[in-house]
């Protein structure tokens, strides 16, 4: 594989992209999990699917769209979906979680319509659903790199505000922090990271890359920074391990990555249990 990495550009693209999303997906995932917004990631990934399908449809029907990278339309839909969720959450003040199934089913519905309008796709829609090692282009890599620099810079610069918003929203507002604006920035970052990660892990499994490493690290980490550290570590191990295995065994990378993340989670739960019983 090492020689393959040196030789083939598509492998380089896949691995570099994998390394990047192995950092940013769990990084935002920590905030998503502690704010109990895990399902929003799921809803947005399905909206991203609708965007990708729309882009592929346009590409098929109209010549001028032939060069368009489906990633852009996916991102636009994802960001649009995140704004729509926020709107719905204010409309259904007392049933805020309703926003999620509404957006999720809307996303799938729209995606399926686009796909059927195009009489199914000859293109590798399959690779968007389950991820692919060979599908990542240089252009994808650049887009994803720019997004992750932006996201990491924002998280670092707004770290203490994001922490406070996650831990205690009322207190954040009482101390005069612009909670609404901050949440808005956060949800747009989530939308972008989902669209960026989808190339490798696939739409159906994006949210697990954001949540599983966090679920594992939360079992034993001391404090928030440590939780972030271990989440990123587990995310990296899952992505890189998954890419290696899927390349050698010719498996879908998304599934392999997620299964490694599940394995880490099971291990973390088991080790914690053992440590707890021993200390008694």
């Amino acid at each position: 594989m090492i020689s393959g990495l040196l030789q083939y550009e598509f492998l380089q693209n896949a691995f570099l992209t994998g390394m990047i999303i192995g950092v940013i997906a769990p990084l935002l995932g920590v905030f998503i999990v502690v704010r109990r917004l895990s399902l929003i990631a799921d809803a947005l990934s399905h909206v991203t699917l609708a965007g990708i399908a729309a882009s592929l449809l346009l590409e098929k029907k109209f010549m001028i769209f032939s060069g368009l990278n489906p990633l852009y339309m996916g991102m636009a839909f994802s960001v649009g979906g995140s704004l729509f969720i926020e709107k719905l959450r204010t409309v259904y003040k007392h049933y805020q979680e309703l926003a999620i199934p509404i957006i999720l089913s809307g996303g799938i519905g729209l995606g399926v319509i686009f796909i059927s309008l195009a009489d199914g796709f000859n293109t590798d829609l399959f690779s968007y659903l389950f991820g692919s090692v060979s599908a990542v282009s240089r252009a994808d890599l650049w887009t994803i790199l720019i997004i992750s620099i932006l996201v990491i810079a924002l998280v670092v610069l707004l770290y203490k505000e994001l922490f406070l918003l996650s831990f205690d929203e009322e207190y954040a507002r009482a101390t005069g922090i612009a909670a609404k604006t901050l949440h808005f920035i956060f949800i747009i970052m989530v939308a972008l990271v989902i669209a960026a990660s989808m190339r490798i892990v696939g739409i159906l499994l994006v949210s697990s890359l954001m949540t599983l490493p966090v679920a594992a690290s939360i079992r034993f980490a001391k404090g928030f920074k440590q939780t972030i550290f271990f989440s990123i570590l587990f995310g990296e191990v899952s992505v890189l391990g998954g890419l290696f295995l899927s390349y050698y065994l010719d498996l879908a990378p998304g599934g392999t990555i997620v299964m490694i993340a599940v394995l880490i989670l099971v291990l973390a739960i088991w080790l914690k249990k053992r440590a707890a019983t021993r200390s008694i």
Partner: protein
Amino acid sequence: MDTNDYIVQVQDLYYRYDKENVLENINLSIKKGSFLAIVGPNGSGKSTLLKLMLGLIKPQQGLIRLFGQDINKFKEQHKIGFVSQKANSFNTGFPATVFEVVASGLTKKLGLFNFLRKTDHVKIKQAIESVGMGKFLDRNIGELSGGQQQRVFIARALVSEPELLILDEPTVGVDVQNVNSFYGMLETLNKEKGITLLLVTHDIGTISEKVTNVACLNKNMHFHGSAEEFEQLKINDVSEIYGHDVHVLTHDHHHHGGGHLHD
């Protein structure tokens, strides 16, 4: 009235969430250095009044002045520390250490894009020590008892060196033995550090010796005066003040320990 002597002034305040007024014609002033207890039955609007003072909600009618300034223009939120009633119902699985939670009290004071400096680390540790939690710096907040968590939240409120500390029923969830030492700690903050305190409580029996002022709230302000004046009220007057909820409160009064708390 000299505005500078008063940290909080509330004038002719009305508030409603939906149709019915939750607060009516509220007047209240808190003098610098005082220790005010607001008492009243459940649903009497105590937490609502605090939220108004913190600017979390806006009144339909009436004025609020903080440190002599209209609340809508007030920007020095770091002068006010706040421990919410909800502080004891937060997500206990949240992975944050005591240090991190207390550090978050400096968020606004530090300002956007600024990081903690060495001097801030010292301040944070001092605040944690001042509530007797020095040993638990690196513990996750969820691993502590209710009373210890409450102390951490007070440290978070204290770390920005506020002049006014607002506490909403802080002893709910604190075990009986610790309630007294907890109030002792508040007294120290008030007397030695000169922090003005506003405490919402059910615990009027225990607290009346420690506070300087008492306000009795039940939609209207039924009494607002010094602790001595309050002591002189006969039990009949008290029942008038509390209205239908008198049983709950006289019950607490007799037990004196304050362990019996209602939410």
